[in-house]
């Protein structure tokens, strides 16, 4: 389907696909098996200017928006969702800086992120604050010379590998979520260490770690925007980043659909290829419909975000929920079509199925997002009633 991408968007998508096929595909299984952080691939992505895509021109970026980021994420996910999230997490880690940072703060950090010399990461989740993100306990106490951080962040993508962290912490713990602020913390700041690297079901090449702050002193100028706005900043960030998770789903589902189609064409049972059997055809058709519908919704939501629309919560939640559910369903069916072979690690679809599950969980579980969509429906109705 023609999505009327412009010349630059087509270029970005085509190059991302080339990197995925030529550089990631040959090492995909090994990265998953060894659970190794894909530094070589990160370097390739950096050399190809992929980290510049989401950064403004004045900070050495290419000025792309949500849609451009989605195109890269989709193509990387088509081959390896673990690499895709590593890339996307660096965008997530600097989006608050891009939106609320001063020119000085942006000058200091963005060029290194754009060039891919440094990765970034975003940290809000804590042991007590998952879906209930307002329930964070990490504090950033105002002291002479800056903020003193104490607490533990959990399940942080790019944790330990990134150099630049955007951390949401309570600068005023008496106010709860209204006392939260976004603060930049650099790796190697004294008092900032990393917990264990998590062992995961999928996206195993990506790094997920705890961030541990023990009397970690961060200079005052690292505060992003005004104190007390951290929670709102984070919610606004996720509103803009969720189409990216949707794009991960689109790419993942696309990859699974292609793998299942290839297998169905080659696999002969009862003297005929599987793909000639109506029951398989029906499954493949349903998978293709899911993929295309997810892509259409994700691109539309991304364009809505890029339009500068004031409210994007529902649209981006819909794109994330639909595309991640589609990815889960399509990858499960891809394994089913590939049968016993599909269950084996020699074939890529079992990895895709494992990788898909997280998409329904992170950046807002699909349940909490459905809740958000429903709340908005109810509010609107109440207003017009």
């Amino acid at each position, binding site marked *: 389907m023609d999505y009327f991408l412009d010349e630059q968007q087509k*270029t970005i998508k085509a*190059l991302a696909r*080339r990197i995925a096929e030529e550089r990631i595909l040959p090492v995909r299984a090994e990265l998953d098996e060894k659970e190794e952080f894909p530094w070589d691939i990160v370097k390739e992505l950096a*050399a*190809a*200017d992929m980290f510049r*895509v989401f950064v403004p021109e004045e900070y050495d970026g290419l000025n792309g928006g949500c849609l451009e980021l989605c195109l890269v994420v989709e193509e990387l996910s088509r081959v390896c969702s673990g690499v895709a999230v590593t890339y996307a997490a660096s965008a997530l880690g600097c989006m608050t800086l891009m939106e609320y940072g001063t020119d000085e703060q942006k000058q200091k950090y963005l060029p290194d992120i754009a060039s891919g010399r440094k990765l970034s990461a975003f940290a809000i989740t804590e042991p007590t604050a998952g879906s209930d993100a307002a329930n964070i306990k990490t504090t950033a106490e105002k002291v002479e010379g800056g903020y003193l951080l104490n607490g533990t962040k959990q399940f942080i993508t790019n944790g330990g590998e990134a150099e630049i962290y955007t951390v949401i912490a309570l600068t005023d713990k008496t106010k709860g979520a209204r006392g939260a602020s976004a603060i930049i913390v650099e790796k190697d700041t004294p008092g900032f260490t990393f917990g264990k690297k998590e062992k995961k079901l999928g996206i195993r090449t990506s790094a997920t770690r705890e961030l541990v702050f023990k009397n970690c002193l961060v200079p005052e100028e690292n505060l992003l925007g005004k104190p007390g706005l951290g929670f709102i900043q984070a919610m606004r960030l996720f509103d803009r980043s969720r189409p990216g998770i949707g794009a991960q789903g689109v790419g993942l589902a696309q990859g699974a659909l292609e793998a299942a189609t290839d297998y169905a064409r080659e696999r002969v049972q009862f003297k005929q290829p599987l793909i000639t059997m109506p029951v398989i055809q029906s499954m493949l058709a349903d998978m293709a419909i899911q993929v295309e519908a997810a892509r259409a919704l994700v691109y539309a939501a991304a364009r809505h975000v890029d339009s500068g629309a004031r409210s994007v919560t529902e649209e981006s939640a819909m794109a994330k929920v639909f595309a991640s559910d589609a990815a889960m369903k399509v990858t499960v069916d891809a394994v089913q079509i590939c049968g016993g072979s599909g269950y084996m690690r020699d074939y890529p679809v079992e990895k895709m199925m494992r990788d898909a599950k997280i998409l329904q969980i992170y950046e807002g579980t699909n349940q909490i997002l459905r809740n958000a969509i429903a709340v908005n429906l109810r509010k609107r109705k109440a207003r017009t009633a």
Partner: protein
Amino acid sequence: MNIVVCLKQVPGTTEVKIDPRTNTLIRQGIENIINPFDTYAIEEGVRIKEKDGGKVTVITMGPSQAEAALREAISLGADEAVLLSDRAFAGADTWATAFTLSCAVKKLDKYDLIICGRQTIDGDTGQVGPELAEMLDIPFVAYVSQVEEVKDGCLRVRRMIEEGHEVIETTLPAVITVAKEINVPRLPSLRGIMKSKSAAVQTWGISELGADESTVGLSGSSTQVIKIFFPRRVHQAEMLEGPLEKQVDTLIDRLKNAGLC
């Protein structure tokens, strides 16, 4: 350091069809790519530039669509591009091609090192590199697998030979052809692609080169392809069976009948 890389645009498939009337490739509907061996030449040129400074100029001879190959080379790090395109250049063999390239190289301000791929995947002759060196009357090294040092007007390279490698030093300017072992060509960057779209590509025809028509294209070629054909498969195998002695007798009979003994 002025580096010149000569490249050729070739069909991106091995399933090419030959026009039976003209004995040339049917190029319609076939995606063109940079000759894969030339991508190593571009990469090596760009690496030397990145290390030692200077610029990389890419040259190709071909129809106007060959400009796409030059733009791709720019996206990979080349700085300047020259397209040699003229009706008079058509039908050139390797000699006329090398001559035309040599005219273009001489027309450049200055050149220190000329890098070519070891051969093309369509013609497969491997002749243009050495011919170019002859015509420019400068040293030539083939099958280079590593550029060890470029310094003070000298070049030290490793050249692949059957059972190992030779280390060769030569003065510059020189021509080298590179083997695929020399590097892993990079992928283009987004900024490179964007730059390549707006980059200036000069086109030089016969008048710009100041060459005589009789020295270029078909008229400047000492060879001409008369016919291209698939060799007929005439061999057939027959397994002799039965007791060994009988097999030997049969074999001798067959050889005698064939006039081979």
